[in-house]
Every structure is written in structure tokens, then in C-alpha cells.
């Protein structure tokens, strides 16, 4: 019976769970706009992989000139961005350890730069904190793999200490066998006063 149970377990572990796996890859650079007491907003810049870039080009670069004019940007926002409000724009903001609600993005822009699709937008926060602000970006559904760049910026708080750290409390398991390499953790930008 032990052998049977072990074989069944091996079978289960060997067969992957059917979670969504990444189909879109993006690099994210974020900048936190602060003042003495508050985090005012987060500026986000996403640079997409060649595949998603190509699909957006096919769908929205109507005149095929390799650029996105204002009309085309509005179409991109409507067709390939607006729904992300349901996903909190893949963003989690914690102030002094407390998670704050993500509001609708503003100032959306899209462009094609060096062959890559780039989104830029602003996430309003306007909430006070005393010690630490932490911003992470990840897709819970794992459709999109997001890499935060290490050069996060902070404006309005010249003395603040900024670091990129691994959030080891938020785990995602994405490979068939639950080995160490199959469990990963998102990075977050942390700003301390």
C-alpha cells in the first residue's frame, strides 16, 4: 500500500497544476513621489517583450508607421490597459506594513521605443506614512511575469533610503514539482525615512 501511495503521490507531483503561466513579460521601473508625510503617487514605466509588442502593433498601430499617435494611444488604453484596474495594475502598496487600496491609473501613455512597447502611467496614492513605504508589482494570475528594475526612483524625499528587496512572504509556485527552484518571490521597492 505504501508503494501505491508513493506512486500516486509521484504521479500527482509530476503532473503540473494548470495555473496560468507567463505569456507576457515586462520590465517595470517605478518612481515614488513623496513629501514629508505622504506617498503621493507612483509613476510606473512598463517595457514589454517582443510578442506582446507585436500584438499591440498589429491591433493598434493602424497606419503601420511604427509609432503610436494620440488616437492610437487612446485605443491602446481602452483595449489593452483599462481592464488592469481589475488587477490593481499588478501593484501592491504597503505603508508602514498596511496595504492601501489602488485607485484608477491616470496619465496613461503608450509608445514604441527601440522596438518595444512602453506604457507609462501614474497611480495616485495620497496616503500618509511614518516609517516605510513598499511597492511591489506582480500578477497573481501569473499570466504576466514582471521584473522590477533596480533603479527605482524617489522624488520629494532626498534623505530617504531606497532598496529593492525580495518579498519572501509572498510565494508563487509555478513548476510541476515543488522544488526550491519552482517557488519564487516578487521583488518590492522599499523606501524608509
Amino acid at each position, binding site marked *: 500500500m505504501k508503494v501505491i501511495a508513493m506512486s500516486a503521490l509521484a504521479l500527482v507531483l509530476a503532473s503540473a497544476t494548470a*495555473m*496560468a503561466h507567463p505569456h507576457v513579460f515586462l520590465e517595470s521601473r517605478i518612481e515614488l513621489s513623496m513629501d514629508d508625510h505622504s506617498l503621493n503617487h507612483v509613476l510606473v514605466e512598463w517595457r514589454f517583450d517582443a510578442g506582446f509588442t507585436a500584438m499591440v502593433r498589429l491591433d493598434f498601430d493602424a497606419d503601420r508607421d511604427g509609432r503610436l499617435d494620440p488616437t492610437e494611444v487612446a485605443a491602446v488604453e481602452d483595449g489593452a490597459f483599462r481592464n488592469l484596474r481589475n488587477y490593481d495594475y499588478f501593484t501592491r502598496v504597503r505603508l508602514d506594513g498596511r496595504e492601501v487600496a489602488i485607485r484608477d491609473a491616470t496619465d496613461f501613455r503608450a509608445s514604441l521605443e527601440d*522596438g518595444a512597447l512602453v506604457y507609462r502611467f501614474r497611480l495616485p496614492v495620497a496616503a500618509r506614512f511614518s516609517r516605510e513605504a513598499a511597492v511591489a508589482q506582480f500578477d497573481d494570475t501569473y499570466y504576466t511575469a514582471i521584473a522590477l528594475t533596480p533603479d527605482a526612483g524617489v522624488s520629494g524625499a532626498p534623505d530617504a533610503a531606497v532598496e529593492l528587496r525580495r518579498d519572501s512572504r509572498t510565494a508563487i509556485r509555478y513548476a510541476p514539482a515543488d522544488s526550491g527552484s519552482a517557488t519564487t518571490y516578487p521583488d518590492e521597492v522599499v523606501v524608509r525615512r
Partner: protein
Amino acid sequence: MKRILILAFLLSAWLFSTDILAANPFTGSGAPAAESSGGAAVPEAQRGLFDRIGGLIAGAREGGVAATALAVLLAGAYGVLHALGPGHRKTLLAGYFAAQPASVATIVGAALAVALLHGASAAAVTYGAYYLLRGSVLASTAQAGRVLELISLLVALGLGAGILVRGLRRSAATHPGAACCHVHALGQTGDDGSAHRRTTSARSSLALVIAGGLVPCPGVVSMIAMTIAAGVPGLGLLVAAGVSSGTAIVVIAAAFAGRGARAAAERALVRRAGALALAARVFSIGGAGLMLAFALRGLAGFVVA
């Protein structure tokens, strides 16, 4: 029977503990199908390959045959890496071949067909959306993907349910006692000379291929979009074949994992007739239960969404 049902329940509970749908967050019209506490990490190798292939496709006209060959080769490597992650119906194939013994040729053929259909479906949807419908590639592929996923899950549900019911009936009809008095795993027959084993049929293999491969591979969709955007749409078929070949390697391995688990248990118990019979029933019913759980979990995701 009680132990079998407990095992099937545990497998199902484990499977239901994670979410399933791969809805496109950018183009959809709703929230995530299920909340989880997970974060995402970047499989750097996958992205690196993806962008490298994108560069080769963009320069395919100047790069000639060498660039094209390298793009196809890297697409195969991408297919392997991509399929190693979650999805691609590995659960379904492993469950199917754990439930029903099959020849090596059948396993390889079915798994290969699943991988090829997965890529062909993506090619059909992408080219169709762009050249025939003249519509949005993002929206069309997402919508078609949802419909085809629903169809494939329903087929998987029917297939798993059929195998499960047959297994339960056979178990009740031929093994009323606590232990079987004869050995008939590993293709042997019982004392009465009857062959009790359920093997795969052409019809059920076809259903497996549809259930496993009908959903278009988003990786292939992206690569074909790259080729269209670069003005070399024909190259899309080659990279799709490359990705499918890579996917096939992993999918075939998953199918053999199912078969191997059953065979290993049977070999270990070959001298213990009662345990061997129980093992055969556990794998027949448990494998079907795995398929059923997979399909139900996917359909539950549709209901939630």
C-alpha cells in the same frame, strides 16, 4: 473501495486548491478568476529566448536561412521551457495514461498530436483573426481561446467521467470481495481467462487529443504576431512548429510519467495478487479522477469568471 474513494478525494482536493484560468488581464473584461496570495517571478531564460527569437524574426529578411534556422531552433528550446511550467494539459495526459494502459506508440502518438494541435490551433486562430476577420489579434485570440478552452474542458470532463464510470463498474462487477483472487495487471488475464484490462481506444485517444491540444498556445500566438509584424508571416508556421516540437518533448514525458507510475506500482506488487489488483483499480479510478478533477476545476474557473 473506500480507500480508492479517499485517495481520489485527496487528489481532487489538492487539484482544486489552485486556480486555473489563463485569462488575458490586458484585454479581458473582468477581475481575476480567483484570488491568491501568489506573486510572480520572471523565468529569465524564457524571456531571454523570447526576445532573442523576436530579434531574429525582425531581422529575418537580412539574416537569411541561418537566422531562420536559429529562430526555429530557439523556438523549440522555448517550447521545452514553456511546457515545463504549469499548463499544457500534462495533468490530463498523466491521468489518462495512468488510468488506461497503452502502448509506447500510442502514448507518443497521442502526446505528439496534443502538442501539434496546441500549436496548430494557435496558428489558425492568429492567422484567421488577422487575415480573414481583419480584427484584433489580442481580442480575437483571447475570445477564441476561451471558447476552445471551454470545449476542451467539456471533452475532458466527458472523457474522464466515462473512464471513471467504466472503472467503477468493472471494479464492482469483477471484484466484489476485499481482494482479487487472480492477477491481471501488466496485461495478464484472470483465472477464468478473461482480460480485465481497459486499454485505450482510437476514439478515446482522439478525445484526449482534442481535450489536450485544442486550446491555442499563447506563446505561439505571440511568435506568429511577431512574424506578421515583421512582414514575414510565413516564418510563423516554422516557429510554431519549433515551439510545438519543444512542447511535445515535455508532454510526452508527462504521459510516460502517468504510465510509469502505474507500471512501477504493478511491478512492485507483482507477487502480491490482492495488492496488485488494488493498485490497478487505484490507478484506473485515480487516473480518471485526476482527469475529472482537472476538467471540473477548469469549468469552475469559467463559472467564477
